């Protein structure tokens, strides 16, 4: 699998939180040949280091490349229920990891004191995390951005909800929230890991001809949607999204795209509100980006601008909006809803509800498969898929292996996996063997 290996740095970082030490290991050809990348390699590494409570962050061969939406980083861990979960991170997380010189990062052990893992200019360090302990995510992000010799491009933060041991906690990518609905944040907090920061200064060589292939694929994607409907395009494909669409149409300010993605599916919503906890009648302007479409869908039926306030509050303290939406009563006032959020964040009781998938929409994808991939990826059926990766589970799994955003793969089923693999190799024989390996890995991931 030489053609796959050239898309990697060839390094795995092994971070021991108990001793705050870092080891760099070579990425073996065998593991790549058998697993290709992403969630599949993560699973293999998880098995290899299973005695050390590992948390694995990994990239795929196309992460950071000229493939559209090549932004993906996958976090794989063993949930307290005993099953493996893969949580996707978009924006620039995947390229930041790969361009730091690391393809996979295995975090083992538990830190005695809260800590931060910093990847800066190719150097990995375990730093004390007490500066961001007990504070909300926006303030934590400001502190992380201001510390060190260079501001991180990407930060993953386990917020105060995770610190308290709330089973509803979720990781936040900066101020964007995330698709974590399986308490990856809680797992990080149990290891004493408060945040991971990344600022990459390196790069990866990709074939120059990929630029032209990429242009064609981008054009195909852009021809596949109407610009005017862009802010709500993703919600048009999701069930029960009328309230979400109305909110976005009313409060939309800007759309944002992940790394090299021609479909900006993330929205910045701006609104004015009066904080009931402050003694003021003056409305203040506020706004936020969010990446959690399922969470927004769950929160949207609540009262109008209150939904936005509550969504932002969930992001600020690192709480799963779906779990909150499940508990919210339609008749609750804003103050009561904010108090509920505070209680849920402070809760440390584990309940059956807590460990169930916090998804709101009861779409056509089974909870088991949905939860396997973090529980946050929109349940959009790829009805028009033209290859053998025609189901939700398979398309998400292949994206998690290759390092492409799963949302793009679901929204544009006309992009075949073969087209993506051509960015790795143009040889037909190699393409076939790649597809076979991927198919077998998908089978093992889906049946885990």
């Amino acid at each position, binding site marked *: 699998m030489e053609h796959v290996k050239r898309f990697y740095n060839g390094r795995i970082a092994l971070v021991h939180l108990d001793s705050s030490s870092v080891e760099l290991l070579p990425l073996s050809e065998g593991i790549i040949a058998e697993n290709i990348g992403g969630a599949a390699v993560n699973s293999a590494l998880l098995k290899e280091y299973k005695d050390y409570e590992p948390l694995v962050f990994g990239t795929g061969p196309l992460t950071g490349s000229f493939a559209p939406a090549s932004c993906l980083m996958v976090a794989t861990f063993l949930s307290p229920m005993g099953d493996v979960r893969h949580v996707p991170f978009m924006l620039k997380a995947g390229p930041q990891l790969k361009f730091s010189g690391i393809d996979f990062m295995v975090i083992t052990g538990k830190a005695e004191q809260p800590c931060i893992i910093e990847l800066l*200019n190719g150097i990995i360090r375990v730093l004390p995390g007490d500066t961001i302990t007990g504070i909300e995510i926006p303030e934590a992000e400001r502190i992380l951005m201001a510390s060190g010799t260079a501001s991180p491009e990407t930060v993953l933060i386990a917020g105060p909800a995770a610190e308290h041991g709330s089973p509803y906690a979720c990781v936040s990518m900066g101020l964007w929230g995330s698709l974590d609905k399986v308490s990856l944040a809680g797992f990080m907090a149990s290891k004493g890991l408060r945040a991971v920061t990344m600022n990459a*200064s390196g790069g990866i*060589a*990709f074939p120059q001809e990929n630029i032209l292939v990429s242009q064609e694929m981008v054009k195909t994607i*852009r021809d596949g949607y109407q610009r005017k409907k862009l802010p709500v395009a993703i919600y048009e494909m999701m069930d029960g999204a009328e309230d979400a669409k109305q909110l976005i149409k009313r409060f939309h300010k800007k759309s944002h*795209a992940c790394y090299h993605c021609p479909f*900006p599916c993330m929205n910045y919503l701006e609104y004015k509100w009066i904080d009931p906890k402050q003694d003021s009648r003056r409305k203040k302007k506020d*706004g936020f980006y969010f990446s959690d479409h399922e969470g927004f869908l769950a929160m949207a039926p609540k009262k109008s601008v209150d939904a936005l306030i509550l969504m932002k509050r969930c992001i600020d303290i690192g709480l799963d909006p779906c779990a909150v939406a499940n508990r919210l009563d339609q008749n609750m006032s804003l103050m009561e809803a904010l108090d509920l959020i505070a209680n849920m964040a402070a809760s440390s009781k584990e309940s059956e509800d807590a460990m169930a998938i916090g998804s709101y929409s009861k779409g056509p994808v089974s909870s088991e498969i949905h939860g396997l991939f973090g529980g946050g990826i929109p349940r959009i059926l790829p009805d028009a898929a033209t290859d053998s990766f025609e189901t939700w589970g398979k398309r998400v799994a292949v994206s998690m292996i290759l390092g492409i955003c799963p949302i793009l793969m679901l929204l544009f089923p006309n992009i075949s996996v073969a087209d993506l693999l051509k960015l790795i190799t143009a040889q037909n024989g190699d393409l076939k063997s790649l597809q076979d390996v991927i198919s077998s890995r998908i089978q093992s991931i889906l049946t885990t």
Partner: protein
Amino acid sequence: MQKPAETPEEYLSIDDLRPLPKKRRLPRRPPVIVFNPKKCTGCGTCEMVCSSRNVSMVAPASSSVKVLRSDEQGTNFAILCLHCREPLCMEACPTRAIEKGDDGIVRINDLFCVECGICTMACPESAPLVEPTTGKIRKCDLCEGDPLCVKHCPEGALRFYRGKSVHWIKYLRWPVQFLVFLFLVVILVGTFCYFKAGAVSLPCPTGTLQNIAATKTVVLTSLASAMVLIGLTFVFGRFFCGWACPFGFFLDLVGKITPKFGLPAFLKSRMIKYGVLAGAVGGSATLGFQAFCTICPIGSICRSYGPLGVVRGAELAIFPAIATLEIGERRSWCRYLCPVGAVLALVVKFGLIKIVIGAQQCKKFSCMQCAEVCPMGIIDRDALREGISPQVPMSECILCLRCVDQCPYGAAKIRFRWQKTAPGDTVYGARKEIL
């Protein structure tokens, strides 16, 4: 063995080795990339493709363009070289490694660059980027005229623009000014103040106000006639001042040959002309005749030719006095003293059109052409230096359109008041916060 230099004068300086190039004319079509923050989605494709050209790898840290994002404000901003008319980085570079070519592109000569980073500090945009691992300075060179980032930006937020090459408005304005001057001064022979041809009359609005004050009567036909110019000004702005006023034409000619030494501060208030207007009307009411009209330079110049208009008395002193003001600032009379301009300025406050300087195309501190050519001095240089597109106060604008004509990037435009303009200060305000 060569004897070492003993005195500082004997050392060679950088100016001896690589002197700064002489200032030369701006290329006829200065190239620049225009960034539209409204369209940018922060995908970073520009960084990817730029780095692929710089280092043959996808390495955004080695790109010559950087996208900054404010998660709190919901804005994105691309930092890239604006290829300034007078690049500050070029002057600041201690080894003169930065050069501006005849094509208008500012480049870093790697042979001389010592990667000190002073150019980054000198640049108001911090456009030269320091590569974190190697320390190499990366700066946009427009890919020698075919920028990759523009080609690959999926949202069209980056646009490659070659500036205007033809400044045609001045070739229209000067003949119009000359013809109007000829018409009013030579042909009509001093009848500007009260032009009458048969049933058509067009009196000066200031003269009309003085007449009403002096005679204490309102002649409706006279008032209605005065409203013609008022009405035209409401629609077209102070076009009269910029295109038709014969005295303005005279001042433009004088201004071309006189040096500029500045005016004392007490004279530089634009409210003085309203005081002159009030004084003219009040004086007329007191004295019982159109007091200011006797010394009005516009009327004087119109009466200066032909048997009807022999300039005499106080009128004789007007021309040299006001011409002297031109060595202070251009169109000083129009800016600070003209009561006709004062009346028109009041009308334009409710007028229909405006001049806008669009934030996207405007190159601000790197250009400032509009501020240099504006004869009324109403384009805020400090705002441009701060990186903010200035608002043009239309009550002071004489609509000469020199800014529109001169702007190489098409940033200065005429618009109706109700038309939305390009994203303005809020975006650049966010840029300042991010930086």
